[in-house]
């Protein structure tokens, strides 16, 4: 692959009557995991549907492996694994039948890998889809998405509905998946703790707008959480304060590291705090 990006989105726009995804731009380098973080209705699923060309865009450009997503998308999908927020497998099918169907859909289907994933994730082969729990359904969806050795995984809330132990296993699987540097993941979730463990890049979506897209480590390096009185926080330069929250004990603010006053102690910020503070500031 000559292109260094698995996915590039430039000025993507989609308008609905009551919602707009406005001017979203991001780039996912090969071998990396990007977390798309946003509250319900922020536009995460819309972005993924637009990438898959399942809905038409009103503006902008999407490139998958360097090619416009509207050109030869069916061919590109041979290299993409998708886990939607709801796995759309008919109720009467079981995992074994799903494997036979997918073997005739994907050219690179690896029946051995599929069987291994089912065993690893403890998905029963002969139980009907309707008899599986939500977590099991999601695990079956993940097994399907990974068994044709895709180069790009698009995951829409894949860990929702999973218990913490399984969530941890699944997060490890995704992490293992990107050990090969030609593989990338775009994962959307509002369970920020999972993304914090997993991602190299994070993108914040809020009300259809991309409010931040940055390397995770850089963000954690760049920002600090500062606690003080409202007067102390008010003395900081306005553009250095990303967001603040008034508590009964004073004020908490996320600030640029360089703006932390000398001698004042500031704590490390986590991605969840950063997201919440930024969203509050945006309103």
């Amino acid at each position, binding site marked *: 692959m000559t292109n260094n990006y698995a996915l590039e989105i430039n000025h993507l726009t989609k308008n609905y009557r009551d919602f707009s995804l406005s001017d979203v731009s991001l780039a996912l380098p090969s071998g990396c995991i990007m977390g798309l973080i946003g509250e319900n209705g922020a536009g995460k699923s819309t972005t993924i549907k637009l990438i898959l060309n399942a809905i038409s865009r009103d503006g902008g450009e999407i490139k998958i492996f360097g090619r416009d997503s509207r050109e030869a998308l069916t061919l590109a*999908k041979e290299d993409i694994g*998708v886990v939607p927020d709801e796995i*759309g497998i008919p109720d009467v099918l079981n995992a074994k039948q799903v494997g036979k169907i997918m073997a005739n859909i994907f050219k690179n289907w690896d029946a051995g890998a599929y069987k291994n994933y089912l065993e690893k994730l403890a998905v029963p082969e002969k139980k009907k889809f309707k008899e599986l729990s939500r977590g099991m359904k999601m695990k079956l969806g993940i097994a399907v998405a990974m068994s044709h050795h895709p180069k790009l995984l698009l995951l829409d809330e894949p860990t929702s509905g999973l218990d913490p132990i399984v969530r941890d296993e699944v997060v490890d699987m995704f992490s293992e998946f990107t050990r090969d540097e030609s593989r990338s993941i775009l994962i959307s979730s509002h369970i920020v703790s999972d993304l914090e463990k997993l991602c190299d890049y994070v993108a914040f979506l809020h009300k259809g707008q991309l409010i931040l897209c940055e390397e995770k480590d850089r963000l954690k390096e760049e920002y600090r959480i500062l606690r003080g009185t409202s007067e102390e926080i008010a003395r900081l330069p306005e553009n250095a304060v990303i967001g603040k929250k008034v508590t009964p004990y004073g004020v908490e603010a996320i600030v640029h590291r360089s703006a932390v006053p000398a001698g004042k102690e500031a704590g490390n910020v986590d991605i969840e705090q950063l997201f919440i503070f930024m969203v509050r500031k945006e309103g």
Partner: protein
Amino acid sequence: MKGLLIKDIYVAWKMCWVYFAVEAIFILLTALGGTSPFILLIPTYLITMIPMTMLITDERARWHIYADGLPVTRAQVVASKFILMIVLNALSAVLMLAAGCIAVVNPMLAGEGHTVGDAAAAAVFCPAIMAFSSLSMPFTFRVGFEKGRYGYMIICVIAGAFIGTASASGWDFSRLNLGAVKLSVAAAVIIAASAAIFAVSWLLSAALYKTREF
């Protein structure tokens, strides 16, 4: 494409076994009792409902959204339903023809005037019914089953009215006595018209489904 068909066959077998059972009973009735319009038309109509049932099942499971993430085109998703319709209908026609032929040689029906022509006429109505049923597919592919069912209901009412009128007027294949040449021409016209309607329905479904947003 092959995977989509395999999926539809698995689901059809699990969800629609009653349809297949009823079809078998009616085929048996044809072999034992001859070619009345009701016995001929109802099972064929029933079998053409299977792809529609598959569409409803897909929609309830959200398969149509899932399929957008698979390396298949929306035209192929539409094609799988229409191919299933052709295969089931062809099978129904062949079985109907075979049952009609059995009726001709059935000693219990000797003297009732059943001919191979009757059986052939019965088989010819299979593609006609298939084409008729396919008319509701573009609606359903465009707006989904919840809204598309109104189109389907209209088609059902028209089909019911047609069968009812035919039965009430005493229409019976065995009384037509068209003769081999006229029967062949009529069959050719019916098959050609059915193929045209079916093709238009298929193309329209593919075009409408291509731009549908979920």
